[in-house]
């Protein structure tokens, strides 16, 4: 065997060793993600367990866990739903504007701005909401809505003068999830096959008819899954709600008053820094409930996205 052949074989051996090593490293990082996630679930369950089934004597208040977490779940879902109801139509329109109405150059800039907005820290939205939105609404809108629409249960009660209401929280949350829904919707709208659009226009459709015939059917599942992701984020959003909402204990449907059900995340943020003993475990248990809630929403979002009732699956 010639020396060159020898070294070639050595090289081959070391290469295949390196190959196996590299593959093992990358595989193990995938496995570690698996482990971490299992770890999250196990840890939260173990630590939260004593918060759910532990001695109530050791906790503040006299509620059982279900009584404790019930209003919080209600508040979380309520605030997120409000946000979603406000944000989705607006995000749909904005996405459509960027993808089909705005001039091309402007559209690129707008897309960039929307992405940037998605990354603005929530604490900034929070202090903006309480400084700008809350006084504005409580002066101009809430008294009017309370007087004229008070017969509807949602607008009943004593209108808040500080503006720290469920509606304010919902609106600020809507501003926060709008960029996400917009970004995803815009993406699918832009992916509409050019031929579909041109075929529609060639048959004499107006722009809106073209959008209804070609763009919306194609992008529908994208918009829905975008909205679901937005909902997921609204469920877990903490700081904005913690800063804006004035929380009370119990279930409240009214959105204009100072009495509101708190959200899970905001309740944790407000109580955790001062909590001790079993209260900590109980807060962690509510965190587990939040985790399951947003997990369910995310699974639903994927299912919608993959259900393929339009061309733009995924």
């Amino acid at each position: 065997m010639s020396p060159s052949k020898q070294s070639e074989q050595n090289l081959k051996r070391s290469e295949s060793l390196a190959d196996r090593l590299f593959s093992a490293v990358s595989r193990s990082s995938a496995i570690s993600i698996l482990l971490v996630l299992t770890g999250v679930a196990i840890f939260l369950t173990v630590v939260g367990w004593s918060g759910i089934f532990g001695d109530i004597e050791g906790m503040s208040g006299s509620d059982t866990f279900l009584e404790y977490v019930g209003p919080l779940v209600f508040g979380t879902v309520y605030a997120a739903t409000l946000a979603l109801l406000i944000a989705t139509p607006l995000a749909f329109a904005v996405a459509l504007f960027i993808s089909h109405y705005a001039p091309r150059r402007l559209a690129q800039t707008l897309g960039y701005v929307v992405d940037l907005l998605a990354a603005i820290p929530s604490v900034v939205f929070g202090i903006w909401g309480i400084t700008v939105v809350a006084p504005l609404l409580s002066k101009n809108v809430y008294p009017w809505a309370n007087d004229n629409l008070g017969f509807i249960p949602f607008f009943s009660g004593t209108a808040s003068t500080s503006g720290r209401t469920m509606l304010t929280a919902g609106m600020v949350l809507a501003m926060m999830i709008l960029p996400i829904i917009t970004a995803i919707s815009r993406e699918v709208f832009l992916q509409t096959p050019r031929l579909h659009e041109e075929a529609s226009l060639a048959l004499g459709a107006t722009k809106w008819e073209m959008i209804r015939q070609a763009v919306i059917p194609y992008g529908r599942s994208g918009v829905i899954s975008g909205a679901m992701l937005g909902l997921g984020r609204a469920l877990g959003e903490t700081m904005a709600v913690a800063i804006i909402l004035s929380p009370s204990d119990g279930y409240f449907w009214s959105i204009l008053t100072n009495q509101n059900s708190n959200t899970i995340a905001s309740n944790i943020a407000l109580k955790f820094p001062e909590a001790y003993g079993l209260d900590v475990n109980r807060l962690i248990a509510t965190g587990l409930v939040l985790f399951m809630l947003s997990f369910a929403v995310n699974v639903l979002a994927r299912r919608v996205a993959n259900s393929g009732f339009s061309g733009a699956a995924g």
Partner: protein
Amino acid sequence: MTVTSESAMTAAPSSLTTGKMPSWMPGAICGLSIVVGVVGVYSIGGFKWGWMAIVAAHLYLLLVTVASRIIEDRRQAVDRAMRTVVTIAFTTVTIPLISVFWTVITKGISRFDRDFFFGTMRITPEDMLAQMEGAQVGGALHAMVGTLIITAIAAIISIPLGLLTAIYLVEYGEGKLANATTRLVDVMTGIPSIVAGLFAYAVFELILGPGTRSGISGGVALSLLMTPVVVRSSEEMLRLVPNELREASLALGVAKWRTILKVVLPTSVAGITTGITLAIARVIGETAPLLVTAGIAQDLNLNPFSGRMTTLPVYSYYEYVQPGVPPETGIARAWGSALVLVMIVAVLFTIAKILSHALKPKGLK
């Protein structure tokens, strides 16, 4: 020829231009609505910009639809109405967004002084007195340093882990493990940030004892949020690398790991760095997980393994909800740190934009 066609035009107007709204008309209607909106609202309740805009917008929507219905047909009217609705919705959304930026900048700029960038919240009695008299005291140096340390910890954990996982998924992944990983990364993307914080808290409570707060636990919490973003974006970028490149390299007898390191990664480096920069921008503003893990301190803490560590978002939050006496100074500090945060995010975004252009392989520019 030309004469006849011209006369034909005048005799029987082209069917392409009849029944169409003249092009000046929407503009005229728009002007009219603005005038009516401003004058109308002013005569009822004085200068109320918000109401003027609302009245003008709705008036324009109404008038343009009616005019189009009369001059054109129903389909055109719907088209114009929808165009107007979409544009109005877009404008409506821009207003609060501009307001966010405007408020943060105007309120935050007042604390852009030397004390703010080089001082901490360890306030001397003299400073306290000065504060009572209305001076701006206290700084955010400790919060900025804390943000840097904790974000760096998160990045050190997340970038290798996320990148390697993405490589596994794209280059090696098949079968059950790859499927499970993809699904779990999806789940991870949906973890509420405060839950990530609780998890890190629970883990470090087990290691370091109950009630403990430290920078490292904050970093771990953030890495939990950052990793799935890195995996997702890197995976997407790796999948964009044409298979021909891999095959060419493998056909030349280059080992797979070398192919990945020397061919696949360099080709996708632009997209991957952009994704990582954006992931950092996402986590750098996280407040909730740090509130429960790293807590808040008044002074500089450089050791992530012991003691509380302040970060900018948490600092901003506490200065807002517990501003001290008089509240104005604390609130000014809150806005100051909010502005610093927004600027960091904006800078990271711009860097990502530039990187994605600068690092593109020559052929793709």
